[in-house]
C-alpha cells in the first residue's frame, strides 16, 4: 500500500507519521505543499503541526496551498484522506469536513494522553479495530470542535462521529472532555466515510517506549482494511 504525507511549512508531525506508516508496511512518500500533483497513493495524510504558523485561523492558509486541489480531487474520487490535529483543522477549512476547530474552551494548550471511544466502525479507519476505547495522545490549542445544530444532526444521523473523548472506562461526561468540543467530538468522517479528521495522534503511540501502543492498533487495522 502506498501513502503520501503532505508537508506544509510548519508541519512538525510529518516525520513521526512517516515512521509510523513505514513501520506498519506502507510505502510512504513525503510530498511538499508546493507540488501540484500527488503520486499514486492509497492514502493521503495531512500531518499535525502549525502550518503557516497558524496565521489567520489554524489550517486556513494551508487549505489554499497549491497541493490542496489534488487532495480535494483525490478525496472526492473516494480516496482515503487522513488529517491528524492540524491536518483535521486543514480538512475543515477546505470544506472536506464540516465544522471548525476553535480555541480550547479553557484557553490553554493541552498535551497529554486521552481516551477516545470508537463510535463508528463502518469506515475503513476503524472497521474491525480490536478495542472500543483507545488511549491516544493529544497536543493542541485549537481542538474545540464546533458546528451548527443542523450540521451536528447530519453528523449524528449519518454516524459520521468517529471518535469521542471519554474516560478509561468509556464515560463521556464533561470532565473527560479536554477542550470543550461539541459532544466530546475528537474525530469525524465525511459523508462518504473516506475522509477522517481527528485531533489525537495515533503516530505517537506506536511503540511500548512511547507510553502506549494503541496507535499501532490503528495503523495495523487501517492497513488490514486496505488489503
Amino acid at each position, binding site marked *: 500500500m502506498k501513502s503520501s504525507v503532505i508537508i506544509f511549512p510548519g508541519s512538525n508531525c510529518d516525520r513521526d507519521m512517516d515512521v509510523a506508516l513505514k513501520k506498519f508496511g506502507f510505502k510512504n512518500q513525503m510530498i511538499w505543499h508546493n507540488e501540484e500533483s500527488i503520486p499514486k497513493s492509497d492514502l493521503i495524510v495531512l500531518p499535525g503541526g502549525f502550518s503557516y504558523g497558524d496565521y489567520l485561523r489554524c489550517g486556513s492558509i494551508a487549505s489554499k496551498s497549491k497541493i490542496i486541489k489534488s487532495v480535494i480531487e483525490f478525496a472526492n474520487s473516494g480516496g482515503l484522506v487522513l488529517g491528524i490535529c492540524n491536518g483535521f483543522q486543514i480538512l475543515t*477549512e477546505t470544506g472536506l469536513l464540516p465544522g*471548525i476547530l476553535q*480555541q480550547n474552551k479553557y484557553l490553554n494548550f493541552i498535551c497529554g494522553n486521552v481516551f477516545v471511544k470508537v463510535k463508528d466502525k463502518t469506515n475503513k479507519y476503524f472497521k474491525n479495530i480490536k478495542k472500543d476505547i483507545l488511549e491516544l495522545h493529544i497536543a493542541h490549542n485549537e481542538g474545540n470542535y*464546533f458546528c451548527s445544530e443542523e450540521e451536528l444532526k447530519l453528523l449524528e444521523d449519518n454516524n459520521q462521529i468517529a471518535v469521542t473523548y471519554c474516560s478509561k472506562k468509556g464515560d463521556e461526561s464533561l470532565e473527560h472532555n479536554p477542550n470543550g468540543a461539541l459532544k466530546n467530538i475528537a474525530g469525524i468522517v465525511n459523508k462518504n466515510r473516506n475522509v477522517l479528521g481527528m485531533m489525537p495522534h495515533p503516530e505517537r503511540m506506536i511503540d511500548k517506549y512511547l507510553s502506549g501502543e494503541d496507535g499501532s492498533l490503528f495503523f495495523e487495522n487501517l492497513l488490514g482494511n486496505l488489503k
Partner: protein
Amino acid sequence: MKVKVIVTLKNGVLDPQGKAIQQTLNSMGFLNVNEVRQGKYFVIDIKENDESKAKIKAEDMCKKLLANLVIEDYKIV
C-alpha cells in the same frame, strides 16, 4: 484604494478569549462591562479606484479566506 474589513464571531458562538478579557476588566474595577467579543480587523490595499468594485472584491475575499462562515461574520466598513 484601501478597504477595511471586520471579522467577528457570530452571535451565540462561544468566545473564550472575549470572556477572559471581560472577566479581567471586571476584576480591574470595570464592573459595568457585561460582555466582550473579540474580532479581527483587516486593512486591504486593492489596486482598484472604483469603490463598489473594490468592495465586491473584498467581499469575495471574506467569503473565501478572511472569515470562516461556520462561526464568523464579516463586515466591510
